[in-house]
């Protein structure tokens, strides 16, 4: 019984080996065949087809030139030149595949490596240092000098920009600065209604400066959950936060303002359109969702005698994305 089983097993192995071997033999014999061939001559029609395609290409380029001078409509120009190029492409491909001689050629692949040359090269290299005694010293000195030259090439690059860290932490907001809208009109507290949002800037400052833009919103004061030290930063429930996202500096230009809290559980939030960092306005712009690592800096607000909004001090933190070493 066991002898029978062993015989069957040997037969199976033998067949498998033979098949594997025959596969390799087949591919090997395929690889030994000579595939070179050359076929010249084409059907007469082909030559005519190529001529027609080339004529179309010429017509297309002529149309392109005419249109360029007379009526440079983008669509027509594109059609004319594009179709001309497409016809040219067709002509060239048809000619290459059917008109000119079709040849399959075999070339020996040149052997690149010359292993017997490697050792002589190494010897030559070493021979260049014959007679030199203090090799380590010279080598280190040369290495240092080379590194120095390379570093010197980089030094002018360091002069590309002014000094930074104080610049990054600067903000144009100071106590007493009036808030103005994009036109420069002072923002009146009475004009900020619950449920709306507007963009404001410090009076007299360039709007494009990163620390300048803030978002002003108004919420029900009873729903506010600001930290204790910011209790008087939001008169009448009017809040201001920096508009520059603390993730990657996009403008936080979305305001989710639920109309019916009893059916909309998510509270009011400022959202950034780039990576959807969501900042809860009731909780000092704490990050509710998204990749931002810090809340938006908050601007303390006061309402002056004329009813206009003014800053009660600087922003609560650095504007925009963090960098190594900045204060959180």
């Amino acid at each position, binding site marked *: 019984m066991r002898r029978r089983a062993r015989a069957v097993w040997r037969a199976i192995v033998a067949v498998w080996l033979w098949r594997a071997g025959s596969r390799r033999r087949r591919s090997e014999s395929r690889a030994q065949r000579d595939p070179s061939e050359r076929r010249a001559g084409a059907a007469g029609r082909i030559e005519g087809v190529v001529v027609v395609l080339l004529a179309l290409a010429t017509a297309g380029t002529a149309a392109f030139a005419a249109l360029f001078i007379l009526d440079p409509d*983008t*669509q027509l120009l*594109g059609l004319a030149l594009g179709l001309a190029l497409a016809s040219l*492409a067709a002509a060239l*491909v048809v000619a*290459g*595949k059917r008109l000119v001689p079709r040849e399959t050629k075999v070339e020996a692949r040149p052997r690149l490596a010359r292993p017997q040359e490697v050792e002589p090269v190494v010897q030559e290299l070493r021979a260049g240092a014959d007679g030199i005694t203090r090799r380590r010293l010279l080598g280190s000195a040369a290495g240092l000098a080379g590194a120095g030259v390379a570093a010197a090439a980089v030094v002018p690059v360091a002069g590309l920009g002014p000094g930074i860290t104080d610049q990054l932490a600067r903000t144009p907001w100071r106590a007493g600065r009036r808030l103005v809208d*994009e036109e420069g009109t002072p923002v*009146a507290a*009475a*004009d*900020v*209604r*619950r*449920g*709306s*949002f*507007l*963009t404001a800037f410090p009076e007299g400052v360039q709007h494009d400066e990163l620390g300048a833009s803030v978002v002003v*919103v108004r919420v*029900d004061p009873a729903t506010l959950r600001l930290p204790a030290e910011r209790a008087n930063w939001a008169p009448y429930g009017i809040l201001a936060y920096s508009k520059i996202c603390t993730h990657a500096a996009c*403008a936080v*230009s*979305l*305001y*989710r*303002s*639920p*109309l*019916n809290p*009893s*059916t*909309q559980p*998510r509270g009011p*939030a400022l*959202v950034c*359109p780039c990576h*959807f960092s*969501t900042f809860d306005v009731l909780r000092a712009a704490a990050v*509710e*969702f*998204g990749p931002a690592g810090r809340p938006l800096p908050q601007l303390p607000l006061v309402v002056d005698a004329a009813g206009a909004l003014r800053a009660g001090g600087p922003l609560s933190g650095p504007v925009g994305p963090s960098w190594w070493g900045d204060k959180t």
Partner: protein
Amino acid sequence: MRRAVLLIAALACGGAALLTLAGGGRGARGGREAMQAAAAAPPSAGSPAPAVPAASSALLAQGRGLFESSCASCHGADARGIHGRGPSLIGVGALAADFYLQTGRMPLPAPRDQPLRTKPAFPQSQIRALVAYVGSLGGPAIPRVSPGRGSVARGQKLFALDCAGCHTIQAQGGVVTGAIAPSLNEATPTQVAEAIRVGPYAMPRFSSGELSDADVDSIARYLQTTKHPDDRGGWGIGRVGPIPEGMVAWLLAFAALLLVVRLIGERTEG
């Protein structure tokens, strides 16, 4: 044969994907929901309501009847709202009612869904009656918008500052975490003004102190250009930017060049 089928299927999928992305999204169709019109603060306390002829008592009676049958289940028979379903409609005015009914956002079967534009549930005559009834409860009238009096450049600036963040700069619609900001291709100037004053669902609302009636005219004028955009470059592919552009680059240009390359080159043996 199989190859041809696969290729056609791939092209069909790619084309379908491209067309859907170039067309509108869910903001153009969508669900229904009960929404609370602003009861916390009156929407546009500053704007003077234009003089409206007093609604006839027959219209008001018809409106009340329709209200009781279609709206009271969420908004309450007295229109004071039911917590967890529909908000109070006292003081929202004809403005809000007209907006929600004309855009089909109301009635809304599931109170927690976002109301989105759909075919109005009522014929125009019934809408007029309902609007008259809700208007009689107090609040602003339907705004009069004249896009022709607005400045298109000022509209572009205002839209870029206040609206593009949610609706995209070409008003093709976008998202916030938790809500959709619909495309504005189908919104009439009146509906644009109404939405600005109401602030439906998650949208902020702007009183006339923040966006004056002239500003609203300008925004409406700008939105006329987004409905008929200057697509002088050719097929607009949705005007939302690089996503459809990338799809065209791969599924049209590169696919065509792949075909060319297959024609020119050889294939491996089978």
